[in-house]
């Protein structure tokens, strides 16, 4: 994942809790990374070559189940197989046989599970900590993915402030989490200009997303929060409105292009 993950545990906790959480995170990284040989890179080689392949790795298998569900839930807006550089066909070309743990693609595709993997790893680490009896903890994966267990150690929800990506000295939004995960995605701000960061594309039509947007998603699942913040970031306005209707996830969309023409605070569409 190429991301720094921090675990902050509060209250009585067995030392083994941290060890188990770390193992869970490393297991996800080992399975989903594409930056060194892994089950995912092996899978990608087969999919790019047009071969059907059996999924032997249980972590990758679980991830694929969630990805398939996310693709459906976001009406194709979340697509880890979409890649503007390669012109890959996307998840729509993938056929995942869950009952036989086999996968194939009708056209060459390759999966990049990096963003999803952060939330997925946080979920598994939280599971490990809860199993070890941890009642209060904060986990972060990089600068934009947070998960909390229980309440803040001093009581109540965990209060977070998300800075404005264009004016970091200003707060964009404040919110509280309880046993939830949060994901932030943005097309603007410092992280959006990393040298090796690929352009965001809208999987449904292949368009490069040029708007200045930030999205925030809060869900009981870190993986779903990643999926929702990513999908909302690339959605066009109609898709975003439809997408936000009826979601279980708390989602916020900030459109900074529209903000520039308004006297009020940025547009926040809340589901």
């Amino acid at each position, binding site marked *: 994942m190429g991301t*720094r993950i921090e675990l902050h545990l509060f209250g009585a906790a067995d030392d083994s809790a941290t060890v188990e959480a770390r193992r869970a995170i490393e297991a996800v990284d080992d399975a989903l990374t594409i930056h060194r040989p892994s089950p995912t890179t092996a899978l990608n080689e087969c999919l790019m070559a047009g071969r059907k392949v059996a999924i032997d790795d249980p972590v990758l298998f679980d991830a694929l189940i969630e990805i398939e569900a996310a693709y459906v839930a976001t009406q194709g807006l979340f697509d880890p197989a979409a890649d503007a550089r390669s012109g890959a066909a996307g998840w729509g070309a993938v056929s995942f046989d869950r009952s036989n743990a086999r996968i194939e693609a009708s056209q060459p595709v390759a999966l990049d599970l990096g963003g999803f993997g952060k939330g997925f790893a946080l979920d598994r680490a939280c599971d490990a900590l809860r199993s070890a009896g941890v009642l209060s903890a*904060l986990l972060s994966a990089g600068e934009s993915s947070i998960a909390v267990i229980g309440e803040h150690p*001093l009581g109540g929800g965990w209060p*977070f*402030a998300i800075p404005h990506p264009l004016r970091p000295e200003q707060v964009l939004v*404040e919110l509280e989490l309880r046993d939830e995960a949060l994901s*932030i995605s943005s097309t603007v701000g410092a992280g959006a200009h990393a040298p090796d960061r690929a352009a965001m594309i809208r999987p449904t039509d292949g368009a490069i997303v040029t708007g200045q947007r930030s999205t925030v998603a809060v869900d009981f699942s870190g993986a779903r929060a990643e999926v929702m913040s990513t999908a909302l970031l690339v959605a066009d306005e109609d898709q975003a409105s439809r997408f936000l209707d009826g979601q279980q996830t708390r989602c916020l969309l900030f459109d900074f292009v529209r903000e520039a023409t308004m006297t009020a605070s940025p547009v926040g569409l809340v589901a």
Partner: protein
Amino acid sequence: MIDKDFDLTRRSFIDHVLKASAGVGMASAAPWAAFAAGAEPAQSDRVRLGVIGTGDRGRALIQNIAKTRNCTVAAICDNYGPHLAKGRALVAAATPAFTDHRAMLDAGGIDAVVIATPLHLHARHSFDVFDAGLHVWCEKAMARTIADCGAMVKRSQDSRKILQIGHQRMFHPTYLNALRRVKAGEIGSVTQIRASWHRNNSWRRPVPADATDRQINWRLYRDSSAGLMTELATHQLQVGNWFLDAAPTRVIGSGSICFWKDGREVYDHVALIYEYAGGRKFIYTSLLNNARYGCEEQIQGSTGTIEPELGRIYQEVPPKVLALQRMQKDVARGHKRTVPIGGATWFPELPVTTPGESLGWGEFDETMLQFEAFGEAVRRGTPVPGLLRQAYHASVASLMGEQAMDSGRPVDWPSSLVSV
């Protein structure tokens, strides 16, 4: 520049030297500075200097001697005709010129001798000058071997004649001001100096038809030089010893002829670590095929850094507090507040690029001042305090660095040095 302008510049320069050397602890750390700045002007009865070696460096020295108010060049000598001719052009027409330094010494009419010859000749020339009953000002490094360095000191002591070595940084107001600020605690405890002298040229000079390669490029051959160590590192080792107020206890190093494989015998890449008491270190590199980092000494303290060649002092930047670390501390003290996220969860440890502040005082007449100090010492018959010890230890350090690189083993500071 007219004389009046020069006097003003000179006065300003001397004022800066005096101001820098007046700080707490400076009297013992740089006793030569006040001595030099207080040299009496002598429009007549100047100290008469004979100069052996009128190559590039020797001629630069002649020009600096001409700026002094108490010295004059009374004779010159070089065994290479074209150099001697260039030297003649810089001195009065009646100034005697010699091709043999013994003939110059025998001719008399001089009080002291300036030696600007290839390194391996320094000791022999110094001995001859002392034997003639004269004082010596010699270019750094002192000599080709540690034994010869010691012998030069011993001959000076036995003959009661002054031996002064050219280390102009000791007279540079920016260096003196840097030391004053170190002594005042402005950069905390100095535990490391990282120094470099990086150039991007072969260091090889064209050889005229009437000369030999070893005559012109003596710096490249082991008989006559230790290359980068004696010609460049010596200066910076002197700065290291001076600012760390000690001689090194041990050195490890690696040297190679890595880029200029042109028949030279001395290393074109050197990397060394000099250890000092208390775990302090002087880390040195010099090379001849990359000039990005140039010549500098980075004097690193617990609260700041000084780079005297750039003339800058930098304070350490307080570490940023990460949001999640702050949250941990808040909880520990029972304080709940909003955690800012979406920002850095860690900070890359990139070089700090704060501009720092100027150490000031950019006049560069330090070579002139060290000759005024020498002239004053000759007139008084007493050495400039502190100088020879600095120079001797710098030369020894450079040569033990060569030994460490040649042997591939650590070399301890010699236990049998002459007491200065």
